[in-house]
């Protein structure tokens, strides 16, 4: 099938692209502003294919300065977007460990001791220190708290209502069509296949959609973006090695909550020093809250779900959350390499936008606004090229889209942030100081070193728990969990001194119940497994099966002969397994042994 423009993925970047483009494809009198090459006399045929089952699924709650969003929607504050609130009070809070179970360095333990000693003269309450001052680059004042699920539904409706572009959820793109180093369109996912992708009942091969321009906005772990990374490589010096998984709850706060809509709370220090937390308050006593578990957290048991529950139970937060009720739940991988992970932004027949194109700013903790901005920048240049009847060659796209992007605040701020997190390669304290240094000097100075590949940071269980759990005990736990076919992290955390979670059936529920209660998972039949272990023999010899521990949906479990089993029906498409793997791919040490391919299904929640 032929189209003029085909977009891969409907995230904030593509929404920005389509919002800008769709408004200018047709004149006020209904005639085409520019003409389609495939349907002469009509406006350009613009298609967008999205993996998730609806436009608002699989995204997250955010706080944003909303600069680019406001440029597209000047009345966004009063547009009636559900769950949107203007940013009010902002706080950054250091959480101390009230239970002594977290793994803190000597420097942090010393700092904790000093804080506790001087707590009478510090803004200290409920085992937490509110930072008396935070640098301006961390502030979002004047911005908005949004449920990205609700915002994307709203933005999708605005785009669709123009009638000039088509968005098709539930339709994953399997790959880009590359001919003679040119991208000529995309191939959709095969339907009616077995787990391994072999034709089965109702086999329908994925259709080829050929288009003059392919807009790739499929996020940090989208299959098309990664295919292009492998096909064309990354620019010299760039690499994609920093990741984080964000896991969050949407919660009905207790009726007597004192938290006001617009409250923005960021935390660090607990449940482990490497884990950051957030709590944003929407209108009507609803909050988005969660944690980020980064790839530089050296634990081989990076289980976000249980860590999130321990974070919620911290006395500073629990006083606000006790009596609350879980509404929805979700997880998503963030590409934290930012500007340093920028791929080739253009090529003949394609352009890349959004998070997968290196827009995330890890210094300001901002991504949606930047992604949206790059989408609008591309749309403006696409319109220029269409009107000038110029083809979508690399040269033309470089002279328009890339030039515009380089001149924008996205680039300026991305450059400042580029090395700001290098310090975390050496430890949390160095990382925090390095961030401040980079932010306060506009990126001129930073601490630390270049990130290494994530698999190099994953130690063995025995190393990580040295001095806390005996090797023999780890071996016993490993055998016991293998016999029960469950992940290890629960048993290890219990052994390491973490208290059991006091399930209340409302907010503190088992991981499995969270999958069933809020944002439930669905996987349509007739599709192949999208998580594939490239070299099973590497899994057989792997001692730190971090993929099992880190899996956000408990979809990866111990399997036969040591090769983990994958259950597509439980996968929330968070993408964490892509980088939570201790085995490098022998063919390419920049990637690991797990392939995250195009797949259908995932969470059904539009509140995230």
């Amino acid at each position: 099938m032929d189209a003029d423009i085909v977009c891969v993925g409907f995230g904030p970047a593509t929404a920005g692209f389509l919002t800008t483009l769709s408004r200018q494809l047709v004149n006020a009198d209904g005639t085409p502003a520019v003409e389609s090459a495939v349907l002469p006399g009509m406006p350009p045929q613009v298609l967008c294919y999205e993996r998730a089952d609806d436009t608002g699924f699989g995204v997250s709650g955010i706080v944003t300065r909303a600069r680019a969003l406001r440029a597209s929607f000047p009345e966004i504050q009063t547009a009636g977007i559900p769950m949107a609130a203007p940013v009010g009070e902002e706080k950054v809070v250091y959480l101390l460990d009230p239970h002594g179970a977290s793994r803190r360095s000597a420097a942090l333990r010393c700092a904790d001791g000093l804080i506790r000693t001087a707590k009478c003269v510090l803004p200290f309450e409920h085992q937490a220190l509110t930072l008396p001052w935070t640098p301006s680059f961390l502030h979002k004042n004047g911005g908005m708290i949004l449920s990205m699920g609700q915002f994307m539904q709203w933005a999708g409706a605005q785009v669709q209502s123009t009638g000039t572009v088509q968005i098709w959820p539930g339709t994953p793109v399997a790959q880009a069509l590359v001919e003679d180093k040119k991208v000529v369109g995309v191939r959709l996912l095969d339907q009616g296949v077995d787990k391994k992708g072999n034709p089965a009942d109702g086999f329908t091969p994925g259709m080829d959609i050929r288009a003059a321009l392919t807009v790739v906005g499929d996020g940090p772990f989208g299959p098309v973006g990664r295919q292009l990374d492998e096909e064309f490589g990354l620019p010299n010096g760039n690499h994609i090695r920093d990741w984080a998984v964000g896991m969050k709850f949407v919660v009905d706060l207790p009726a007597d909550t004192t938290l006001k809509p617009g409250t923005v709370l960021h935390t660090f220090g607990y449940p482990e020093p490497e884990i950051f937390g957030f709590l944003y308050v929407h209108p009507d006593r609803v909050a988005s809250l969660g944690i980020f578990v980064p790839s530089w957290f050296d634990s081989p048991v990076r289980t976000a779900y249980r860590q999130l529950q321990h974070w919620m139970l911290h006395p500073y937060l629990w006083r606000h959350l006790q009596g609350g009720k879980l509404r929805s739940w979700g997880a998503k991988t963030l590409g934290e390499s930012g500007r340093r992970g920028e791929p080739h932004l253009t090529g003949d027949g394609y352009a890349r936008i959004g998070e997968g194109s290196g827009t995330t700013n890890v210094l300001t903790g901002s991504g949606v606004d930047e992604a949206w901005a790059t989408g609008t920048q591309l749309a403006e240049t696409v319109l220029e090229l269409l009107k000038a009847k110029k083809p979508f060659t690399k040269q033309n796209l470089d002279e328009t889209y890339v030039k515009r992007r380089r001149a924008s605040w996205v680039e300026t701020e991305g450059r400042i942030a580029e090395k700001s997190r290098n310090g975390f390669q050496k430890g949390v304290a160095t990382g925090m100081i390095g961030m401040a240094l980079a932010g306060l000097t506009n990126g001129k100075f930073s601490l630390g070193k270049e990130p290494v590949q994530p698999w190099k940071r994953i130690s063995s269980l025995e190393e990580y728990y040295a001095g806390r759990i005996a090797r023999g005990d780890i071996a016993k736990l490993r055998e016991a969990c293998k016999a029960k076919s469950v992940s290890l992290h629960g048993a290890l955390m219990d052994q390491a001194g973490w208290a059991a979670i006091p399930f209340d059936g409302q907010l503190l529920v088992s991981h499995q119940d969270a999958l069933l209660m809020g944002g439930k998972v669905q996987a349509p039949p007739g599709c192949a497994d999208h998580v594939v272990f490239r070299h099973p023999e590497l899994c057989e010899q792997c001692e730190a099966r971090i993929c099992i521990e880190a899996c956000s949906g408990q979809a990866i479990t111990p399997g036969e002969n040591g090769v983990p089993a994958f259950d597509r029906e439980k996968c929330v498409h968070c993408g964490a397994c892509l980088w939570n793997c201790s085995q490098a791919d022998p063919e390419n040490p920049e990637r690991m042994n797990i392939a995250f391919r195009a797949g259908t299904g995932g969470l059904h929640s539009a509140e995230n």
Partner: protein
Amino acid sequence: MSTAYQIVVCGSIVPDPLQTLEPIASPAGPALKNEMMLPAVLDPWAGHALYEAAALAKSQPGSKVWLVSLGPKAKLQQVMMTIAQKVPFELVALDGSASGFTDATDTAAALAEAIAAIPGLDKSKLLVFGGWESASRGAGATMQMVGERLGILDQFQGVDRLTVNVDGSLEILERIEGGKHQVSKCAGAPALLGWATGNLPEPKNNPQVGMVNMRSVMPALQKARPVKFAGDGLAFASVALPKQLRETQVVKDKLPDDIAKEIVEWIKQ
């Protein structure tokens, strides 16, 4: 003998069944909490009817399928993105409430009026399809009233199969009590069929179908007629969710007999 049918499917939206629903009292009567925020899907019962209609139209050259849909316009637009790639149809949109708390009489009146207004409709070729029931309304009365208002006397509810005989007559398998089917015959159109589950799987996404459908879907949504319900004479004494006790187990590859035994034991407890 092949007959070119005009098949009108009545089908609207319901909240995505994977969501947690909570009834609340609103100024306009009972409603679902955050209903407009919840993702929506095509009512699964109506979905079966639509897919059966498309299959029948495909087997009877010259046939055409309309989907008459009453729901909030923004939500209808959203749901069209997920179903318009499935089968070819022309949308007739009505902008109004798709709530399960509206009066079935009012809903039926609006649907019948919209069907009667379809240009070029030939009653001698008309088959009206819909869900026997609805995921948001279990009354099973709406389709019957639509048929009555259109003057269609041959009505079948709980349909699992429709066969067009060589002579053009229709043979219909209807569900009846006791887990049995009743076989009925009628001479042909016009007829109304309230579908149960049918026998067809959900069609695969077909981008070409989607592209063609969308050319008519967006104009139909843009000119959707607003429908307001008076709600006169309808009162709800109380609204509550069934009490539920959940005990979660995720078990794979267990024999059905063993699952059944375990459920029986659980119920006995």
